[in-house]
């Protein structure tokens, strides 16, 4: 290799090709992915304001170091079998999230559908206690709470920890603003919408039951999105 110019051209080509292919390719395919509209509603829903701000808290505390937010399809791992969701996550689930927190390690459970857990999804009190006391491998995030003297009335938000460290008499334990936003976010984590591309691909010849139970129709325009092809009704 003698020619510096061709060498540099090669470097540009190596980076440029992969950029054009992977970065711009996926961007072209997914950047304008529309929400899915049927007769009554469009989905995915936006997070309500408080929950949307909670996503920042989730990100900045580094929750994604231990929790994923992506459900894999039923035949790939036990995500669905563990009750983390009824279907695999698809690109459209994330279009309104400023920072999709897909995560890389499952030290703790997947949280994609935390608010839709069956039979009993955790309520606000459960989550506050979990954050304050920790549980098993999850540390306690005590710095998200403030223990303060009761002046006048007890705060509406005050929580009563059940653990070994009770709050002294005359004091109350109040979640900070950040804790409230984080819990609001966690209580909105639920992908209930059904998209054409999120339906399981039926095995050849055994199409009937799986896709027939899904209610929503699949208009052609929405099917141009990502990943697996939508289940099409076989002509008899």
């Amino acid at each position: 290799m003698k020619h510096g110019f061709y060498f540099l051209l090669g470097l540009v080509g190596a980076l440029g090709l992969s950029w054009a292919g992977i970065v711009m390719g996926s961007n072209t395919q997914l950047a304008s992915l529309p929400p899915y509209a049927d007769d009554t509603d469009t989905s995915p829903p936006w997070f309500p304001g408080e929950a949307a701000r909670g996503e920042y808290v989730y990100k900045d505390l580094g929750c994604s170091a231990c929790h994923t937010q992506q459900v894999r399809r039923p035949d790939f791992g036990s995500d669905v079998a563990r009750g983390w969701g009824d279907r695999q996550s698809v690109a459209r689930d994330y279009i309104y999230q400023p920072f999709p927190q897909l995560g890389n390690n499952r030290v703790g459970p997947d949280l994609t559908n935390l608010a839709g857990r069956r039979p009993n999804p955790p309520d606000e009190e459960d989550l506050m206690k979990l954050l304050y006391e920790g549980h098993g491998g999850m540390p306690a995030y005590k710095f998200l709470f403030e223990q303060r003297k009761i002046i006048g009335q007890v705060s509406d938000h005050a929580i009563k920890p059940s653990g070994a460290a009770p709050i002294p008499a005359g004091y109350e334990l109040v979640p900070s603003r950040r804790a409230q936003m984080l819990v609001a976010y966690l209580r909105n984590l639920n992908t209930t919408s059904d998209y054409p591309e999120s339906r399981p691909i039926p095995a050849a010849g055994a199409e009937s039951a799986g896709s027939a139970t899904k209610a929503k129709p699949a208009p052609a325009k929405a099917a141009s999105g990502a990943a697996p092809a939508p289940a099409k009704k076989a002509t008899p």
Partner: protein
Amino acid sequence: MNAEVTAIDSLSRRPLLLLLASGLAWLLLGGLLALIAAAQLIQPAFLADCSFLTYGRTTALAETAFVYGWLANAGLALGLWILARLGGEALRAQNWIVVGTLFWNAGITIALIGLATGDVTGFSLLNLPGYVQPLLLVAYGAIAVSGILAWGGRRRSMMYASQWYAVAALILFPWFLSVAGVMLFWSPARGVVQAVVAGWYSQCVWTLWLAPAALAVAYYVVPKVTGRTLRSYSFAALGFWTLLFMGPWTGGRHLIGGPVPAWIPTIAVVTGALLFFHYIIVALNLRDTFAAPGVSLRFIAFGLAAYLLGGVTDALTSFHGLSMVTRFTYVENAEQQLALYGAISMIFFGGLYYAVPRITGRAWAFGGLITGHLGFSALGVVGLVLALAVAGLVQGGGLLSTEVSFAEIGELTQPWLVAVLFAQIILLFGNILLSVNFLATLALSQKAEVAQFRAPVAMEVSAS
């Protein structure tokens, strides 16, 4: 290249030593942070009340200090030194290196403060808050100017393999950092495109920056120490271009089974297999390393073995069946540590043991500490990677079954995570030995005799 130490080395001394010294400081800090993170995995309550050090933040801090603190500084020092030597001139624009290094380190400091106070990005290998990236780009550019001048003004128009790798590493990093910066921080892409860009970026860091930087060192030091030309050298160019053209496409292997179009992970699996050509050629070119004497080459041989093994495991864990078990487990941490520590860092250690006596004109102060560092590093890396891999397989097996709860998985992985902690302690201890030796060499060591340079193997271990 008859003389072992030339004016090229002595005139380039100050900026290179500044880079190496700052790299070592970050290495120690990163090791300490990795230790804290390992302790938190075993005992979640450890430092849990300190909001700056949640587990998510500690791991981000440790990774950034290690990659952008230690590996970047050390890689730049070794790369610039090699480009200067092969170019045949002392480094030019040295003030640029010094100023650039100071600002680079200031940038890393700001990044760490940012991460600790709430700017974790959640992207693997890109835990740099958006606001610090322009500063890092400018600082990196200032340092790289000198390398580009050394390459552009080289005395022979022909280029050696280690120049290809060094120049590629030097030139490409600012490009893909700025692309990622724009698409993830300044004007964030929509939804999961962010995950695709982050995967592409992390693979660029690996195959277009760190791996080329390490291979530049290996391709330079190995023939120097063995005194023989590289074997099968005519294949080297193919190996180089395979890495550069295929490497970045493997980014999607972090998204197998994820909510992205299937073509992204599929291309990653295919290009991951094509990268075998690169690994085979590197193994062919550098196979003399494994039989050669000298501590520098012991480090480099270990690093190359880890590099080749890492290539194989990366390709294997991309396969559907294995990925189902290993995805979202500590196996991925094991692969990352094998690559970053086992391969890159060990090769840099080897380069550093070879370069410092030549840059300073002094023999290493304590030969025993070098052997100690080699032993602790090898033991630490093997222990760390094995413990993480076993913990990950246990975790992956548990996750696959719906019967095993997270508490049970935690109990099953606990002993292996304790082993991880011990491995981190060993690694940190080894790096303290290196730092002590480095400082002592600068402060105490005598000027080396010419004879010591003529017998480089003896010099590397001599405690003069």
